[in-house]
């Protein structure tokens, strides 16, 4: 393929966002641009709701979903996953001073907000059944608003994002992370290989192989880490370890 259309959501800082000039920036778009350069293809971004990304991929409207997708059994049936671009474990965000026991009994009646159509939503229902009161949101911003407003007691979502978007910010002073790191994806995946990836349609084995090769080379020469550092201070994949160590 000479031209690859990459789907991205544009509303997921710091991984993906849009500047006032209307430019798509963030960890993932920049990684993707570098990847395309190395693959010697021209890339074009299509920005859409996260929920529309996978259907658009399946319908051929985009060639790659360039927003981190957590592998679940259902998704793996439909698409090919590349190497992880981010291991972003999921965690709970709760009000400071509240302790919960993360079992169906412990969360009985507790109000949890999660994103619609996400692996996290599936995880919560599979873990706790209908014990907690689950509210479904279209995007994490709405979850944050309701968390602040007190409509929900906790949320369950990507640790990196919640740290950057709430805990590290002044309005997040009353909140803390809880429940440790969790993996909402396919549990059959070995822990060291866990992580969210970019995906392509089934049958595009050639494309995914080229992408993986390009990403690997970026990891190896530490370009990956340089790009990541522009937005985030901590490593996002295990494969970064060498580069992180080198720089001390």
């Amino acid at each position, binding site marked *: 393929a000479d031209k690859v259309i990459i789907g991205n959501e544009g509303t997921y800082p710091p991984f993906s966002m849009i500047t006032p000039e209307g430019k798509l920036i963030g960890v993932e778009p920049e990684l993707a641009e570098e990847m395309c350069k190395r693959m010697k293809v021209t890339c074009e971004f299509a*920005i859409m709701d996260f929920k529309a990304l996978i259907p658009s991929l399946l319908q051929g409207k985009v060639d790659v979903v360039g927003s981190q997708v957590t592998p679940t059994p259902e998704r793996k049936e439909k698409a090919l996953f590349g190497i992880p671009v981010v291991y972003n474990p999921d965690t709970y965000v709760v009000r400071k001073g509240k302790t919960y026991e993360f079992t169906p009994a412990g969360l009985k009646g507790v109000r949890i907000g999660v994103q619609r159509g996400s692996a996290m939503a599936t995880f919560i229902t599979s873990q706790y059944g209908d014990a907690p009161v689950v509210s479904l949101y279209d*995007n994490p911003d709405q979850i944050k608003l309701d968390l602040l407003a007190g409509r929900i007691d906790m949320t369950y979502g990507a640790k990196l994002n919640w740290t950057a978007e709430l805990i590290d910010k002044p309005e997040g002073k009353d909140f803390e992370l809880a429940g440790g790191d969790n993996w909402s994806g396919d549990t059959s995946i070995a822990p060291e290989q866990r992580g969210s990836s970019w995906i392509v349609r089934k049958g595009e084995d050639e494309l995914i192989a080229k992408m993986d090769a390009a990403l690997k080379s970026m990891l190896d020469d530490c370009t990956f880490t340089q790009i990541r550092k522009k937005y985030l201070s901590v490593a996002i994949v295990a494969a970064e370890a060498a580069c992180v160590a080198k720089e001390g």
Partner: protein
Amino acid sequence: MELLALGDTGYGDELLFGAVITMKLAVYGFLLALVFGLALAVFALKGKGPRWWLFRVYASVFTGVPSLLIIFLFYFGGAEIVRGLLSPLGIRVKLDVSPFAAGVAALALVYAAYLGDLIRGAILNVPKGQFEACEALSVPRRHLWFRIVLPQALRLALPGLANTWIVLLKDTALVSLAGLNDLIAQAKIAAGSTKEPFMFFTAALLFFVLISSLTLPLVRQVALRLERGQRRARV
């Protein structure tokens, strides 16, 4: 407020582009719906024959189901539907339905059903004498329709048309859910990137209120023009 500025410092220009897309979507959708609705109205004009029933079935489906579902259906399934329709003819096409195309098609088909009903009612309300006078004067069909009946029907249908336009305009908001970068989508993106949702949503709200408020005086102008001759000159 500088977040709403035009140019590189704010999202004003993005919103504006979004607004242009929204307007384009609404205008194309409405015009197509009008043409198609008119065709349906004329098609189903006469009494309760098979054509009327066919129209009822069509209207029942397209007005019975939310436009959002029809937009989704066209967006995610449109290519397949068209391929399915064409393949018996031996035509194979590679085609992709853009959100804009899906939006226009869905809005046009849905609102054609509403407008068809409206226009049909208006035509039936044109006094029968107007048709008879034309017949008695041997006026050709084409002139009967385009110069006598439709102008008068338009006058009767106008308030309903204005109403439908406003409803359709607001319905365009749904196409953002299929990935079109219209005003609502731009407002969502700006809100997501800046974490200032209220400013952008209020701006979007004002845009819709403004357009629909402008519609009414505009319609009044058109009405006055169409009403030419209907008003009794007060002496």
